[in-house]
């Protein structure tokens, strides 16, 4: 829980996950039997099983978050940028960001609304038309603080909102929520060899998970996600992707994977036996590391369990600690049974 705060506030845009990796490493070092970092920066830890185990189970959560990269510094010192990972242009305007190692603060600006033609006000401002203002007046001045290629993240502190759902708000719950769950899971031993893969570059194409899965070569795998939760009141008969507080969301099919039915059944059965709330994620939306993992080598039966989280891929997201804890519970109980699951066809 406190760790979620630390994870959420750490900066780890795709390709630059070092800080997050460090936070996680400090947390798990004493809980695991082995760990290593691979060529792309994945942190892969092994928690050996209780001796008589036969199966390798991979659980992936990605460390990276969407963010910005500084592309160009204009003569008058404003910074042109490019999104890293999928960010909706509409959420960028007038946001506070932190740039580079030294977390130089800046604000994303564009032409003030007063100067816009009525028609232009209707339209979304494209990121190419925006720039970051760090309060300097010349290129030289700017170059003393930032350099082309620096990564930038949204400046959003972690806050507890409380309430029955024990909601918290912060950035990058996609997928620091998953990281938090995975770190929790590493406290126990299970009747399987558990390979915890904290992956990189999920937001730019599931790239970390792909190489991690290849080197681990697991018998089956789970991806832990902070997933879309679109449960706001809206017109028409369209039910939510997931609902906040209704428990972990189990994926049946998204754009990247059709979850292994046997694993899905195991998850459902486990949830019901243990009275853990669960929900289905609305099919055909989004993609996760499981998309890369299940296609590794000769194929890996895979499933996805996610913590519902509102407003992901925008500066601030929101989740319920109940959902987070229930996700830990569900995974714990499932891992206890997964070695006996019949995978023959």
């Amino acid at each position, binding site marked *: 829980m406190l760790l979620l705060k630390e994870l959420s506030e750490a900066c780890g845009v795709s390709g630059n996950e070092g800080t997050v990796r460090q936070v996680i490493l400090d947390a798990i070092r004493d809980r695991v039997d082995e760990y290593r970092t691979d060529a792309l920066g994945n942190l892969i830890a092994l928690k050996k099983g209780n001796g008589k185990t036969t199966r390798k189970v991979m659980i992936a959560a990605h460390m990276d978050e969407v963010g910005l990269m500084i592309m160009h510094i204009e003569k008058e010192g404003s910074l042109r940028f490019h999104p890293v990972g999928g960010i909706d242009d509409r959420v960028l305007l007038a946001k506070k960001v932190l740039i580079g190692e030294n977390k130089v603060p800046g604000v994303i600006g564009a032409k003030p609304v007063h100067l816009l033609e009525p028609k232009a006000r209707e339209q979304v401002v494209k990121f190419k038309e925006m720039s970051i203002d760090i309060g300097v007046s010349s290129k030289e001045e700017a170059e003393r603080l930032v350099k082309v290629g620096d990564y930038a993240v949204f400046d959003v502190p972690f806050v507890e909102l409380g309430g029955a759902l024990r909601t918290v708000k912060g950035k990058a719950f996609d997928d620091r929520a998953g990281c938090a769950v995975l770190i929790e899971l590493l406290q126990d031993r299970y009747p399987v060899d558990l390979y915890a893969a904290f992956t990189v570059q999920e937001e730019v194409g599931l790239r970390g998970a792909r190489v991690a899965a290849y080197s681990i070569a697991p018998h089956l795998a789970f991806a832990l996600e902070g997933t879309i939760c679109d449960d706001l009141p809206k017109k028409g008969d369209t039910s939510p992707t997931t609902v906040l507080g209704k428990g972990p969301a189990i994926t049946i099919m998204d754009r990247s994977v059709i979850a292994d039915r046997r694993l899905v059944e195991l998850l459902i059965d486990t949830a019901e036996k243990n009275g853990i709330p669960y929900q289905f994620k609305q099919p055909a939306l989004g993609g996760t590391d499981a998309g890369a993992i299940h296609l590794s080598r000769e194929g890996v039966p895979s499933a996805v369990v996610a913590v519902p989280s509102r407003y992901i891929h925008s500066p601030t997201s929101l989740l319920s600690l109940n959902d987070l804890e229930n996700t830990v519970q569900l995974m714990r109980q499932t891992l206890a049974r997964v070695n006996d699951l019949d995978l023959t*066809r």
Partner: protein
Amino acid sequence: MKELIKELTEAYGPSGNEDAVRETIKRHIAGHVSEMRVDALGNLIALKKGQPQSGIEPRKIMLAAHMDEIGVIVSQIDEKGFLRFAPVGGVNPLTLLGSRVIFADGMIGVIGRERPEKPDEFPKIEKMFIDVGAPDKEHLTRKVGDMAAFLRPLADLGQRLTAKAFDDRIGCAILVQTAQELETTPHDVYFVFTVQEEVGLRGALTSAFGVEPDVAIAVDITTTGDTPEAYPMAVSLGAGPAIKVKDRGMLAHPGVKNWMAETAERLGLPYQFEVLEAGTTDAMAIQTSRAGVAAGVLSIPTRYAHTPSEMVDYNDVQNAVKLLVGLLSGPVKI
């Protein structure tokens, strides 16, 4: 062979739910292959071991046809028991209106549509729903995530056949028939019936990694340019199986392409070259498996692809089998 084709096309098997198709195929090839296995994703991999023949270098050949078909998946269920759905694979909304769909357990539903704001409005899948005739949500046994496929029996038009899911059950039928007709071969031939092609060539990717073939031929459908005002394309129904040169996803290995063309000419079988602007096949995934595979495609010209009424020419199908048998009986020249 028409019986086999009918049985296969009418089987239920949207992507990820290929079990029924797989069982049917197992039944038909049992006894004609040396061994069978099903991999982690559900691909059926059947090996016909080669008999060494003097002067012929034995190769590892993979033939691939996908078992899955396009369909729909239940995304939400409203209070009145109507099922909202999302597409599985490339589904054209126009083909859904008035269609019937069937679920794994045999439940049948019809597809309805919200009243469009404009009468000529292009139908959107978000504005459609499945009606299985349930009075309300309580009396409904369906759940979110259930998949359904088109319901449409095969019709024998004589020279030509029409049915749903010729993409790619016709390929499956051709592989099955080939496995049955091929007495001996100098090569180790892997008949691979893949899963989840329609959602991204997924089964082919993993099975190719497992099989590690030297040469691969995917057998799938291609569109034609022989219907009124069609996009300019040289392929037409009945002019023989099509040997692929290129599609959206891949360029066929020139060696494999020529090997197929020369064999067809040697056997006096009709064939045509195919350049497809859209779509791709399992061969794309197989081609880049491991350190690379010499991959080609044998296509069956098919009209109205991805609709509930696809159409093929029976001669093209039989000639495809003859060509495959011919290819597998002789040396691999690439």
